[in-house]
């Protein structure tokens, strides 16, 4: 079993009274870009609900001191990516964001949100490019880079972009079936993978890659992949949709692979769980693993799906 030492919460929106209005609530699905003396953490945020009680979501960042990750040095001045134009797939949300250094550019893959009549939303994955270390991104095109296809009919979300052996890998989640839970449309997602030589044209594997562990109805999200010691390690989060509103339980799961396609799930190794008290005592979710100055860390969000911020844990030992 891995041994993660929780170091505490780094960011809670409510603690920053001067935060911009569009960053009012939430800090979801963090991911990192390591700069000279800064760790830039991107995450999803929301302004207050609109007059109809609906949220839009943006992607933003905060800059942490590389030598003291609990020191917030700066905020994004505006959302790193605008919302999409009228009628586009990302008109109402552009999060989560996952980034990759690609030559001198930062490529950002993000989930775009639109609103539907019969179900609350649909989601597809878009691509935007930054030439200023992620301060701002420009769309490569107005439509999604991972489109809906025969076997992935809707709600394609949660991208995690990686490059291994000169090949692009996208881990993401896709929905199969909307169903009514007490008259309300709900959906459950499973983790999937697509491969690409150029980051633009993708081949989907078209199957769920992580076996169920808790229940066949379980929902999976945030498939964060990290290479260490000859293996690919995936940390992700999961929950059971039908019980979620009662128990609020979201937990972090673990799987490993040697070829990025075939994965062995082994949650017994994950080594991190909810706390007994505090900001992460109901759920831990949306893990992101990164290495900084020879130390492996995990960022993750806590209660109410990141409404009260994200924290960090430090790996003791190695990922074997």
């Amino acid at each position: 079993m891995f041994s993660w030492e929780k170091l505490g919460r780094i960011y809670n929106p409510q603690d920053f009274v001067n935060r911009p209005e569009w960053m009012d609530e939430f800090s979801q699905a963090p991911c990192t870009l390591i700069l000279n003396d800064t760790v830039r953490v991107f995450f999803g945020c929301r302004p207050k609900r609109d007059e109809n009680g609906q949220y839009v979501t943006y992607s933003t960042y905060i800059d942490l001191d590389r030598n003291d990750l609990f020191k917030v040095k700066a905020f994004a001045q505006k959302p790193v990516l605008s919302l999409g134009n009228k009628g586009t797939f990302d008109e109402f949300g552009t999060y989560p964001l996952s980034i990759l250094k690609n030559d001198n550019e930062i490529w950002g893959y993000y989930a775009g949100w639109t609103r539907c009549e019969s179900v609350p939303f649909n989601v597809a994955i878009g691509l935007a490019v930054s030439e200023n270390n992620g301060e701002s991104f420009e769309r490569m095109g107005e439509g999604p880079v991972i489109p809906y296809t025969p076997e992935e009919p809707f709600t394609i979300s949660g991208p995690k972009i990686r490059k291994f052996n000169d090949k692009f890998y996208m881990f993401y989640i896709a929905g199969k079936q909307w169903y009514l839970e007490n008259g309300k449309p709900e959906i459950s997602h499973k983790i999937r993978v697509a491969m690409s030589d150029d980051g633009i044209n993708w081949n989907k594997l078209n199957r769920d890659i992580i076996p169920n562990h808790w229940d066949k109805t379980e929902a999976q999200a945030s498939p964060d992949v990290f290479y260490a010691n000859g293996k690919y390690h995936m940390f992700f989060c999961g929950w059971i949709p039908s019980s979620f509103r009662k128990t609020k339980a979201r937990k972090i799961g673990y799987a490993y692979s040697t070829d990025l396609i075939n994965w062995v799930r082994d949650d017994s190794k994950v080594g991190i769980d909810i706390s007994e008290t505090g900001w992460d005592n109901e759920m831990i979710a949306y893990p992101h693993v990164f290495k900084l100055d020879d130390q492996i860390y995990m960022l993750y969000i806590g209660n109410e799906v990141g409404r009260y911020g994200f924290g960090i844990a430090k790996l003791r030992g190695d990922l074997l």
Partner: protein
Amino acid sequence: MMNWTKLGKIFDPTEHQLHNNCKQFAQSPQVLVLDKCVRIYFTTREVEPTGKYLGHVAFVDFDFDFKNILNISSETVIPLGGLGAFDQHGMFPMNVLKHNEIIYGFTSGLSRRKSVSLETSIGLALSENNGLTFEKYKKGPIVSSSLHEPFLVCDAFVQHYENQFHMWYIYGVKWIKGAEVDGTESRVYKIAHATSGNAIDWVRNSELIIPDKIGDDECQALPTVIKIDNRYHMYFCYRHATGFRNETGRGYKLGYAYSDDLINWTRNDEKSGIELGESGWDSEMMCYPHIFQVQDQVFMLYNGNEFGKFGFGLAVLEKN
């Protein structure tokens, strides 16, 4: 110069009993030529209690001189999609192709959105009973919005030429803010081309292949292509983006282009050889053309005034 002789309106849906509670509209007629009849598929409309439409595919069988109706579909030809699916709220239109004894149905599925009225994608269905009913290939679309085709992908017309499948279709280039007509926003869409070896996986380059005649806000729809001798002839319909329902001269007319290589098209509406009627059922509008061959004759089906609310008509190409 092409030379068409109009044969008049041949089908009025209000004179017949249709399934799925449909009473009006017989839009975008498209054929499957069978041994003893020509089966003409069209989209007709069910009115929901909210006043919104659901588009259903139906068919009518004619004899080869189009004088006698032999049969009309009496049950659902292809069911609409389930909750959240791309074709939950209608199919308009369906293009049918028989190739190597397989009957393909290329559907244009509609689903309703919040900020705009709808989104569309192209689906695939197959028939194993000579086109009486169709089964969907999968739940998701085969061609949907992508990086450079942001929305409203629909109106597929597929033929097999030069050892591969060719699809002509349209995609949306913009929704026009504030230009609302009859409660629906205005949108602009254009004709594009895709190729495939298996009719499922399509290669697109997102190029617009037909030059505009009436400016950037020209809407081009429903391309149909036929090969005569060594030349490919395309008909389609086009209109202004706004004022097209009621203002004289802004509604749908037929456009024409030709190509000798399936890549480069020369638009020349003056040579189309077919114009609005001076009076009668097609005097204000002509739209949704479909060209096909029966025995040695080339025919065109099309809709007239009011987008086909009261049916479709036929023209025959004179041999030069």
